[in-house]
């Protein structure tokens, strides 16, 4: 279980990648986990063919929420919106090594949930 807080996770927690805001993002979206107060917001800039050219996350809350968003940000750069919408909980459990069925799943999923909701906005 100490793996849950292994070096990589703590590194992403203390030094989240792509943290902050973008200037003139194509989309900006925020969600929160009301039960614990964790929040994630995402800014995205698209390149040609609906590929994510640049991304920034602002996450506050527990280590897994912040690390989850940070790990995700590295994975989605260069991916298309279709590919990102196809990402599932199983993908997040692999990225973060949090076991499926863990009580901490909502934490690691918050970044992906925010990102996918942001992309849905794009369609509408």
């Amino acid at each position, binding site marked *: *279980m*100490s793996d*849950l807080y292994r070096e990589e996770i703590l590194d992403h927690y203390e030094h989240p990648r792509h943290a902050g805001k973008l200037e003139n993002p194509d989309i900006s979206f925020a969600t929160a986990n009301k039960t*614990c*107060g964790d929040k994630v917001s995402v800014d995205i800039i698209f390149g040609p063919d609906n590929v994510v050219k640049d991304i920034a996350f602002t996450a506050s*809350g527990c280590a897994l929420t912040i690390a989850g968003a940070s790990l995700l940000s590295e994975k989605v750069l260069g991916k298309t919106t279709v590919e990102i919408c196809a990402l599932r909980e199983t993908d997040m459990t692999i990225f973060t090594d949090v076991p499926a069925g863990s009580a901490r799943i909502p934490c690691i999923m918050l970044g992906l949930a925010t990102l996918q909701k942001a992309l849905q906005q794009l369609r509408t």
Partner: protein
Amino acid sequence: MNYRELFPLVVTAYPALSYLDNAATTQKPQTVINRMNLFYTTENSNVHRGAYALSERTTVLYEDARQTVQKFVGAKRREEIIFTRGTTESINLVANSWGTANIKAGDEIIVTILEHHSNFLPWQQLAKKTGAILKVAHLNESVVIASESVKKLLSPKTKLVALAQVSNVLGCVSPIKEITAAAHAVGACILVDAAQSIAHMAIDVADLDADWLAASGHKMYGPTGIGILYGKYALLEKMPPYLLGGGMISEVSLNSYEPADLPDKFEAGTPPIAEAVGLGEAVKFIERIGWENIQNHERELMSYAVEKLLTIPAVTIIGSKDPALRQSVISFMIKGVHAHDVASILGAHNVAVRAGHHCAEPLHTHLGLTATARASFALYSTHDDIDRLCEGIAEIKKTFKL
């Protein structure tokens, strides 16, 4: 006295676990588990006075449990003890039955900022529904509810004061007797949420003069699915039924029905019979140990816990740092670490605590917090458990390089 060996889960199933989540639920002594097994093996049938011997036996056991609880809380009559599913249902019963019949627009209801959602939402919504005004009593400088906190909100319009005897977050004990006297003086009724106090202190409803008192079996070494509502006979008698169905009627015709007498009027459907019997055994278990032993044990443990936690600079205790003002509950934060991370890492080190707002979101918001960690004690909690908790906190500090 080693109480641990009385609890099978603690000594056999999870001997290495420091279970410090007793405010959420308590573990069960072997006698309670045995009593329920015995019931299902040799005494199970339905109550409501069937015509055969087994049913008479079951009914006697169910009513014996009621009398055991009656004596335990100091009620005058058996009809004043209603078995429910738990504290939440007990409070909802009063809100829906007495509340709907007696609260009108412009009436005032007083709750406190530290209430559990189960003793907050029924009144919030009753006020919304009826046009009554919900007033919230606040903590004083010592971070407790003092009688002044409530008294200054009382008015001739106050119809109800609803408050917890012990806070499930702060562990503070509210001065129920004083507040009840003040409430009665303006003609208001008082409902006491005893969920967090029932296993930790002697309760005498006559002495408190509470109009209603609600508690849960599973927080007092009894089974889940059973709770108590104590109510003064004169009040319960006038209250309309809450749940409708079998067992709470005296007669039913096509267009109407007559409700049964107390306590049946408020016990619709087949009750949690085995659970009531289990609860009766839990009461006897507590009585055998005795309040003096229980309080000495818990008081000593609380002193030790506060003393140790105060030596860790990264730890902030939520509420009073005076152990004498706390009953069995310590909520805390670790600087720079989210409560969920705290609970996860402690869990990995075999220390069970809870993280979140503990069903007291208004309190957390008021204190400027989103989530806290909470350790809570019971009879089987030991110095060792506290030491483990502190070791776990040291691990957390190491992991997060604090």
